[in-house]
């Protein structure tokens, strides 16, 4: 019994790291640009399809698939910001939100048109390999996904903390006007930020492609899951996204074990409602929105 619980919690922690990466993308975009990207789940699904194509069709290792997803989705996010999102950054929040709902509908429609509604399994041999450590039996695919996600989170954290661009990004996040005054190239910072956020989602999608069938309808679920994760941690907080991801991953795994499957799907929303009501800014949230 104990080993069952340990296994479930370990599985939750592993998937939680990937959720953390998705949430990190959302929170970086929000933290810097103050826009709420409701189309984030579509970016994850784009990543899953990239994983599907590269792993399933070209048979590349999952780490390479993740790298391809990172590059492709960074460029995609950069262009999306420059061409569309840019024009709405100074608009009121609810109008941005409506634009992002529009983007979400647009991209999920594009996904449906391109790939059809049928799920495509990426499941390869990798999906069924397991590793046994003491009492734990873990999916090899999950371990790889979690390790890559964890590494990326750490690398991104270091990059934002120590690099020159990271400093300008944090400067822009703290005080946009101040950044302009000291000569930051705010439009470029914004475009790169959106690219990084999108790349996070895309990489996370590629990493979980062995675990989820590629399917356009997943997008809304991922968007909402990312929001729940981010709000549990606090919108705009780096550590919060990670903590939120782990919390949701473990909570979901435990709920799947103890409740009915429908409770498992409802749990993140219940958690979100409870958190929003009792701790509206999350564990480490920004003061104001």
């Amino acid at each position, binding site marked *: 019994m104990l080993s069952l619980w340990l296994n479930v919690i370990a599985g939750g922690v592993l998937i939680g790291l990937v959720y953390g990466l998705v949430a990190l993308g959302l929170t970086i975009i929000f933290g810097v640009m103050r826009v*709420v990207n409701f189309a984030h789940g579509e970016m994850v699904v784009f990543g899953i399809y990239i994983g599907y194509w590269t792993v399933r069709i070209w048979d590349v290792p999952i780490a390479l698939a993740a790298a391809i997803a990172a590059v492709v989705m960074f460029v995609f996010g950069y262009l999306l910001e420059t061409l569309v999102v840019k024009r709405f950054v100074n608009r009121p929040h*609810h*109008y941005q939100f*409506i634009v992002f709902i*529009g983007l979400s509908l647009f991209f999920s429609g594009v996904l449906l048109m391109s790939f059809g509604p049928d799920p495509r399994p990426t499941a390869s041999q990798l999906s069924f390999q397991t590793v046994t450590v003491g009492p734990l039996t873990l999916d090899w695919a999950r371990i790889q996904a979690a390790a890559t996600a964890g590494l990326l989170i750490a690398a991104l954290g270091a990059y934002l903390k120590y690099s020159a661009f990271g400093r300008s990004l944090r400067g822009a996040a703290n005080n946009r006007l101040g950044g302009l005054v000291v000569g930051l190239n705010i439009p470029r910072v914004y475009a790169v930020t959106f690219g990084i956020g999108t790349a996070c989602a895309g990489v996370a999608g590629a990493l979980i492609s062995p675990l989820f069938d590629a399917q356009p309808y997943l997008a809304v679920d991922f968007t*909402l899951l990312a929001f729940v994760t981010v709000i549990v941690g606090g919108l705009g907080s780096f550590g919060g996204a990670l903590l939120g991801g782990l919390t949701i991953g473990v909570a979901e795994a435990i709920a799947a074990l103890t409740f*009915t499957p429908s409770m498992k799907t409802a749990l993140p929303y219940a958690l979100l409602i409870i958190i929003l*009501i009792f701790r*509206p800014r999350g564990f480490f949230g920004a003061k104001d929105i």
Partner: protein
Amino acid sequence: MQRTSDQASDTKRWGAGALVFAALAVVGGMSNAYVISLLTIVLLFTFMGQSWNLMLGIGGQLSIGHALFVGIGAYAVAILNIKYGITPWIGLLLGAVIAGFVGAVLAWLSFRFEVRGIYFALLTIAAAEFARIMFGGWDYAGGMQGLFYQAPSGAMDLGMLRGDARFYYFVALALAAIGVAGTELISRSYWGYVWRAMRDDDEAARALGVRTFRHKVLVVSISAATAAVGGGVLGLVQGAIFPDSIMGMAISVDVLIGPVVGGLGTAFGPLVGSMAAIPLHHAMGALGDALGLPGLNSVAYGAVLILVVWFLPDGIWPSMVRLYGAVQLPARGRIPQLRKVEE
């Protein structure tokens, strides 16, 4: 002088509205079954769009989970009617009361703890998704298999709200007319001024002695209750309700697209917007089916939302009015938040 010109423009406005609805009634008398069924949906979403419009366009609170209230209304009518044979009129009333209460509780809980803006919007969608999943697992309410109305006999029965497609068209038309007139009346009432004041500047409204907390709860509650009435009728029109179809994200989007496209905070906007967007959605859906491109309608909806906010942030209706220039748009029709936020 000012007064007479106001009265003249008032008469014009109400007259124009009456003309539009008279024309719609004539259309309902003449059109074929397909047009009737499409326009019924358009008019129902005009009504529900008005309720959403009341909340954001006038009250300043963004909801992206209106499907919750629509679904509550639909389920209240369906459960009472299908399981106990009780007239939908009672169901509509009960649904409105329950939805109004749920809306008030949500608003009370969140505004009390200063959950506002985007956080409140996310709370509404979380509540809607949570309820959708719960209804899917609730066997008494049909679960995922849904609830089915008996096929209508065709005979019109106003007491039981049953009849043919044309009957429902006129029910929807009446609701839409009530929605447009109601928005116009509310927007020039005491509440309308108070709500716009708190929409534009919460602190300033409070400084003037408005109890904004109460008024926010009130506007959300009224919006929820009216959305539930629309949902109850929508369920009757569709003949069957399922959690995914009546409480899903798609309903929330259908509710908000009319006012956004047509013009937030205006009385006619939701009608114009629904008339433009919903038939487009259906046409693109049909075209997509014909071409084997299943996502085409979703692409069209998304593109419409983005382009409208991009190029016509006030919506189609105010732009039409400005272009035509015959009716001076009163200052209260303009929405200050739509302008750029200052640096």
